[in-house]
């Protein structure tokens, strides 16, 4: 609960970080918090790797001619950028790190339902990531992260380890989702009905459903591509009667919902952050919770909008386009609810809140350009151009990474018991938000102008916008460098944060920060709604809008 200001903040003597010591205690731990921390380190490394690739790609595009690398290197690099960022960073990022760390704390449980399975997920993730990385060392692959057949089945590059890595990471993702669903169903503290679950948990729940039901399809699909590449079984090979468009159907049946695997947890984070920093009951709790489920469900019906110019039938294009519009409505509901939550609040403008504000802009612009590219006739021009690249980076980087950073700052005291420097946090946030806009808004324009994606060299008329985008990306990178410095400082020397530095009412702040090994000594009893800033029975002013 909210701590009073006159007491100095406390730091527990024994907590989950120092309860056991030694590398072995980490590698064999079944503590969800430690597993979360190990995910944290892993995904940050993956992000660093993918980010370096991204910067090299941007530098390459400074001139229309070859700048620092050859065509084959470029093609491998954008593939690896995609594979690393999507399968190693985006998908495990928020569920793996914050889901693992916070889910049991928010539910009042001592651990997730299957702690050993949770550790297995982490090991599978490591194994898959290592395999995919070994594919890069063995020469790299040049298919793009989409592995479109028949190019992927005929490329001379090393594809198999990458496919196997994706397959194994897929299993890690399935097991994580399975674990979370069971946890949410069976390990809620007494008194926590379904309508008292924090919104972050709702988001993770919706995400997990997608992970469990969609990931097996991509697992099978990448294995079929692998088999096809090695054995030429003809399943996607037109010369043997196969249908390459079938591959696209199977691929996007997973990969479109996969977008929601990435963005739903981000939405959950924003719900928590906005509620906590405006000291408000979340406006329209039920609408936000149900729209998460709605996105998860409708997201499964929309995959065909990636295939408007692939030769898919005109009728199917229309059906998929219409359904895609519904996903937009669910997102719009959430956005309006977040903004309405700010209304009449008591807003503490802290770093996580800046990221949340950036998130709101990015999700609206990214989401609505998403609706725009789902408008069939417009997509004919935009498909596979930089407009699409900019659109999904607005969602993936703009929305998801903003939410990841917001979560990282908001829960940093929870995880480590120390706090970061607020001033530097704000400065870095400004750099990142501005740099992000400067990077990707030119890419919308260059896509409008007709520059296709995955272009190593490009016609000269696109030069100015590409230079602008590269310049913007340097701002973005600089912002991340600042974060690295003050976060490392905060980890070692940061001021003691106390149990609940934000006076947040989230259930996870009911434990000491950092939490003890088994979270709770006694099972907590939940007697109020999530995100409630009133004590039970307290008189409050009601405003209806």
């Amino acid at each position, binding site marked *: 609960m909210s701590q009073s200001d006159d007491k100095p903040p406390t730091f527990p003597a024994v907590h989950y970080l120092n309860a056991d010591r030694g590398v072995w205690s980490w590698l064999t731990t079944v503590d969800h918090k430690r597993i979360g921390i190990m995910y944290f380190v892993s995904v940050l490394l993956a992000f660093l790797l993918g980010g370096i690739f991204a910067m090299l790609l941007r530098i390459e595009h400074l001139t229309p001619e070859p700048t620092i690398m050859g065509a084959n290197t470029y093609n491998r690099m954008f593939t690896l950028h995609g594979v690393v960022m999507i399968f190693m960073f985006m998908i495990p990022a928020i569920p793996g790190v914050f889901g693992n760390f916070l889910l049991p704390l928010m539910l009042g449980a001592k651990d997730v339902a299957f702690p050993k399975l949770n550790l297995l997920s982490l090991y599978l993730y490591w194994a898959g990531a290592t395999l995919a990385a070994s594919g890069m060392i063995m020469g790299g692959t040049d298919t793009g992260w989409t592995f479109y057949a028949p190019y992927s089945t005929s490329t001379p590059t090393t594809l198999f380890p990458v496919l196997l890595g994706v397959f194994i990471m897929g299993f890690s993702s399935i097991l994580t989702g399975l674990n979370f669903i069971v946890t949410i169903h069976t390990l809620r503290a007494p008194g926590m009905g379904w309508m008292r679950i924090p919104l972050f948990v709702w988001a993770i729940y919706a995400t997990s459903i997608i992970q469990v039901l969609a990931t097996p399809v991509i697992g099978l699909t990448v294995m079929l591509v692998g088999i096809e590449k090695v054995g030429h079984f003809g399943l996607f090979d037109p010369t043997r009667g196969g249908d390459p468009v079938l591959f696209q159907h199977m691929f996007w049946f997973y990969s479109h919902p996969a977008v929601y695997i990435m963005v739903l947890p981000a939405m959950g984070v924003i719900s928590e952050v906005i509620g906590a920093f405006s000291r408000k009951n979340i406006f329209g709790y039920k609408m936000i919770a149900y729209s998460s489920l709605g996105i998860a469900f409708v997201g499964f019906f929309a995959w065909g909008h990636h295939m408007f110019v692939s030769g898919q039938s*005109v009728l199917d294009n229309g059906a998929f386009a219409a359904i895609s519009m519904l996903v937009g409505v669910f997102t719009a509901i959430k956005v309006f609810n977040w903004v309405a939550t700010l209304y009449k609040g008591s807003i503490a403008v802290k770093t996580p809140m800046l990221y949340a504000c950036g998130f709101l802009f990015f999700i609206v612009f990214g989401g609505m350009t998403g609706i725009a590219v789902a408008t069939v006739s417009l997509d004919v021009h935009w498909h596979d151009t930089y407009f699409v690249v900019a659109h999904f980076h607005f969602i993936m980087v703009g929305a998801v990474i903003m939410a990841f950073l917001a979560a990282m700052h908001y829960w940093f005291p929870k995880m480590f018991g120390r706090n970061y420097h607020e001033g530097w946090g704000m400065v870095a946030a400004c750099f990142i938000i501005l740099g992000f806009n400067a990077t990707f808004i030119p890419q919308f324009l260059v896509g409008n102008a007709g520059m296709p994606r995955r272009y190593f060299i490009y016609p000269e008329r696109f030069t100015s916008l590409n230079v602008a985008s590269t310049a913007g990306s340097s701002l973005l990178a600089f912002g991340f460098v600042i974060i690295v410095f003050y976060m490392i400082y905060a980890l070692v020397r940061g001021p003691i944060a106390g149990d609940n530095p934000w006076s947040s009412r989230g259930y996870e702040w009911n434990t000491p920060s950092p939490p003890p090994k088994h979270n709770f000594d006694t099972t907590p009893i939940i007697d109020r709604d999530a995100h409630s800033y009133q004590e039970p029975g307290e008189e409050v002013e009601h405003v209806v809008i």
Partner: protein
Amino acid sequence: MENKVSKPAAPSSHGKEHAHGPGRYFVIWFILLGFTLLTVVTGRMDLGAANLPIAIAIATVKATLVVLFFMHLSESGGANRLVFVVSLIFVLVLMLGVFGDLLTRNPMSLPSGAPNFDISPESRIVPHP
């Protein structure tokens, strides 16, 4: 879902499952064998377009019996049923989306050798007039 820790009651677990004994398993087993025979017989009859729907209908009945009684879904919790049904719904969604495409696609865009195409080797990629 309630989260009460304990309530005193009789020690027998899963009370409902005691309602039936091995007899029920025998019955299901015999029905399944009967359906297998039926599907083999109807499968070899020439029923034209009806062959496939009949085969799938029989398989579905068999699968339902296995799921409900061998796998005890008829008596397990709502969440388990929901999970299984939802997974089947998504299988249907996958099929529906793809078939919405295949059945209405421009015939030229179908693979060579598909019904709308001549199958002589000369015209591998030339659509039938």
